[in-house]
């Protein structure tokens, strides 16, 4: 293997002189004071190789020796990852010793001794290709596939496969013979370089299946789909993290991967503390069982922060190859972009807008492009739904990360300071936010099947009413309550009904936090019914009075257990209130 010696140090960028070939992105370890510092090649100029070190470079001296590994930054994929807490480089945080993270400490992401009940699903003699399913194991009641090596080229024949029984991840469970006649031992571990997208599928069609999140402002107003992409920009204090946690708790997904990328450690601790207690509303199992957390908090090394989102995406692709529905959340992609900026700055590259690297847009779009709904080679489907948060500097959405993300993500959930100040949570702006999927004919066809063909027209009607309500609110502000016709007040208060009853939702209330699709349908129908009544009030005070009462009743209904006596009681009261006006 190639060796190098340190010739320069600026913060976590180190220059090496090397004695042989290296390739871009190759991993090397620099030896210093007994610690081995993992580093990645980011630039080569003649015999000078620039590497970014994933750790603190304190005390590093010229002349220190670096050893190249011959591979890029790659992670290990195998059963045993669920419920784990990793750092951005896939070190198992629970296995690390001591209270403080020690430099140069790398831990095994897998549990080598754990035995898995393996069941073969192919027979000797069968022809397979890379990523084809060979067998199954069950982890936390989730069936996982053991696949032919992702790197396998062309076709191969199964020479032998072990019988049903207990095996460790590193045990050979099958032997394949490739096209050249070479025998390939297969165990349960796959390796994959994180910066490369896995393209082991047949086709990536436009996604169309609604992904239920239980959050009304998303499901009803701006739905996201299995394999879809979305992003949540918002100034600090507008509830990005609460919304992300709500989605990851409630979404109808088989696997949830949360990449805490450069954010607060206490937020990760909250997940560690709560998820093992909370129940997945769709399966009744513990949430932690389907969750993997990649925690590279803001005080952990910057270069590993950049790696963390790729690590998370690669894990998502691994599970998608098994035909699972994966939800990937990254909080926040701005911190990832900032990590890129810090490095670009140290390499003295010419800066793009706001000193971000010029290729920021390309990196973001390639990353979002790795999500998607796919048909695997065996005809099964799998998906990665990706939702990233963006932390725009100064809350200004005209900044490079937001703008570049907007070009690629299909759903936009704009969190707004003004709504947050008014405690209208989730603070998703109903007018600026959008879901492109509402326009997909594939999605319309699916919704017609799953709900009915009136759903989308109704949603679009309410959206128009929200816009109209906002316009009228502005007029009332200028002209005063008496300065506009009474029916303007009615239009405005109808938009308030939509806001209070559908869009606002109490993430901390046990009942209101998650709304089933069936219940959302009922609420939507009710709100549409209210909006379609022509009330003909005499003066604006009556309008205000009536709608405030109506909002109160609807909210009490939202707080009541679905179809409970209390729920029916409130619904009766609402119907009675409406009856006088039909």
């Amino acid at each position: 293997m190639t060796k190098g010696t340190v010739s320069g140090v600026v913060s976590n960028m180190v220059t090496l002189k090397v004695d042989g070939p290296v390739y871009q992105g190759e991993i090397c370890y620099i030896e210093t004071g007994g610690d081995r510092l993992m580093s990645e090649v980011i630039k080569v100029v003649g015999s000078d190789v620039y590497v970014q070190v994933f750790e603190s470079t304190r005390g590093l001296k010229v002349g220190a020796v670096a050893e190249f590994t011959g591979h890029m930054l790659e992670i290990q994929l195998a059963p045993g990852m669920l419920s784990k807490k990793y750092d951005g480089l896939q070190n198992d945080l629970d296995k690390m010793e001591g209270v403080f993270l020690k430099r140069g400490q790398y831990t095994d992401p897998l549990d080598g001794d754990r035995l898995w009940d393996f069941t073969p699903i192919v027979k000797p003699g069968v022809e397979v290709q890379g990523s084809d399913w060979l067998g199954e194991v069950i982890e936390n009641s989730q069936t996982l596939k053991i696949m032919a090596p992702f790197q396998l080229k062309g076709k191969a024949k199964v020479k032998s496969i072990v019988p049903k029984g207990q095996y460790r991840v590193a045990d050979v469970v099958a032997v394949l013979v490739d096209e050249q006649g070479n025998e390939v031992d297969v165990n349960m571990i796959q390796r994959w370089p994180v910066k490369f997208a896995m393209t082991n599928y047949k086709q990536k069609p436009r996604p169309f299946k609604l992904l239920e999140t239980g959050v009304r402002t998303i499901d009803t107003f701006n739905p996201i789909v299995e394999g879809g992409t979305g992003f949540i920009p918002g100034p600090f204090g507008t509830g990005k993290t609460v919304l992300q946690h709500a989605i990851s708790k409630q979404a109808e997904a088989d696997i949830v991967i949360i990449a805490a990328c450069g954010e607060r450690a206490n937020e990760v601790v909250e997940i560690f503390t709560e998820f093992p207690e909370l129940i997945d509303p769709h399966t009744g199992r513990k949430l932690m069982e389907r969750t993997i957390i990649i925690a590279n908090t803001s005080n952990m090394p910057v270069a590993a922060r950049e790696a963390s989102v790729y690590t998370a995406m690669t894990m998502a692709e691994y599970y998608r190859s098994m035909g699972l529905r994966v939800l990937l959340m990254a909080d926040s992609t701005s911190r990832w972009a900032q990590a890129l900026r810090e490095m670009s700055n140290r390499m003295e590259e010419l800066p793009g807008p706001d000193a971000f690297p010029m290729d920021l847009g390309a990196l973001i779009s390639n990353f979002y492009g790795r999500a998607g709904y796919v048909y695997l080679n065996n005809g099964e489907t799998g998906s990665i739904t990706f939702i990233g948060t963006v932390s725009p500097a100064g809350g200004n959405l005209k900044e490079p990360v937001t703008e570049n993300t907007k070009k690629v993500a299909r759903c936009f959930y704009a969190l707004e300071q003004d709504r947050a100040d008014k405690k209208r949570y989730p603070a998703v702006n109903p007018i600026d936010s959008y879901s492109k999927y509402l326009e997909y004919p594939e999605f319309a066809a699916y919704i017609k099947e799953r709900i009915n063909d009136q759903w989308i027209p109704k949603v679009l009607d309410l959206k128009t009413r929200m816009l109209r309500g906002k316009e009228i609110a502005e007029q009332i502000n200028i002209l005063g309550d008496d300065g506009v016709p009474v029916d303007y007040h009615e239009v405005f208060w109808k938009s308030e009904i939509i806001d209070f009853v559908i869009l606002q939702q109490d993430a901390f209330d046990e009942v209101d936090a998650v709304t089933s699709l069936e219940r959302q349908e009922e609420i939507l129908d009710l709100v549409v019914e209210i909006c379609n009544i022509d009330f003909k009030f005499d003066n604006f005070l009556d309008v205000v009075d009536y709608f405030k009462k109506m909002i109160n009743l609807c909210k009490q209904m939202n707080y009541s257990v679905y179809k409970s006596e209390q729920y029916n009681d409130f619904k009766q009261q609402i119907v009675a209130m409406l009856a006088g006006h039909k």
Partner: protein
Amino acid sequence: MATTAFQKVYTKISQITKATCSLKAKGVGYDELATINGKLAQVVKIAGDDVTLQVFEGTGGIPTNAEVVFLGTSPVLKVSDQLAGRFFNAYGQPIDGGPAIEGREVEIGGPSVNPVRRKQPSELIATGIAGIDLNNTLVSGQKIPFFADPDQPFNEVMAMVALRAKVDKIILGGMGMTNDDYYFFRNTFSNAGALDRIICFMNTTEDPAVERLLIPDMSLAAAEYFAVEKHEKVLVLLTDMTSYADSLSIVSNRMDQIPSKDSMPGSLYSDLAKIYEKAVQFPDEAGGGSITIIAVTTLSGGDITHAVPDNTGYITEGQLYLRRDSDVGKVIIDPFRSLSRLKQLVSGKKTRKDHSQVMNAAIRLYSDAANAKTKMENGFDLTDYDNRCLDFAKDYAGQLLAIDVNLDTTEMLDVTWSLFRKYFKLEEVNIKKEFTDVYWGN
């Protein structure tokens, strides 16, 4: 730090800028300290045998033949129980005339706590100030700044909070503090008889600006000693983090780095996060100590979109705003913009059950009062409800939000209930029946 016999002395400086010196040297470690004619400096760049040093007190008076000695370590602090009650400069040297500290040397700016070894914060820090305890409860292990204009009395509030909080140690890190404010803190702590709990690292406006880059790491190294090894509850006060950030931008500018927003270095977020994330609650297995950070970020004309408050807001767990209330003529903690992200971990759990509901109801009514005020100013007629809201707002601001109140949380809740009863009807406060049944009374 005396030189020892076998240390190599370099005497040929090849380049001097306002903040850095460069020379040819071998075997130098990154981040290592050196002295240049006795002035302390730190290695910031190594390129082959060219070494660039950042000189903390500035390069004025350094000759090209100055004696440069490398010390072989990055900045260290000697830690022991002797730290308690002492005042130090940015290098951790006593400035109170007392003897040098004996203890173990630890490198400052050490590694981060493994997130899985943290405990979710859950212990309330009572300050007696209702604007904090009632509306924005502080929790031990939290990190929270005051966002304040330079003329606001944030230092006074911070000193008060520190003295009232039941903590074992208070560590004050002063960055670019005026001499007058430094003496204010010294006198306040000494008058309160709290000096034995105080440890102070001070960089005043009279000291070189770059030195203050060491203050947060020094303060937190001391905090970690007491929290990790002595299992104590430590409160760290950092004032003012904006002058810390200004020093960062000076250094990055001198090193020809490309500035990002507001002339701040592109790494500002990571630089600030490394400091604030030292706030931690350790689990009982690790002794149960904690580090809580209360900082000050001064604003320019209340502008929170500036890079320093903006990045800080994304890192810290909330922020506190001060405001002068013209109705009562007192400084209050602004209930609208202030936020403690950790308050739901204690309110109603470590305090009375009605806490959250009462807090929200009061703030909602206070916001109705603000709307009524706008209405009044615009010349529209006020309803009876509007007038009652305005009266409520005055009492609420004077009796609760003002920074000069000192009550325990239960008293705060009782006062709020009495104001509700005085000005509103039961159905106007919108509080769950189970609480109004108990506290509304007759």
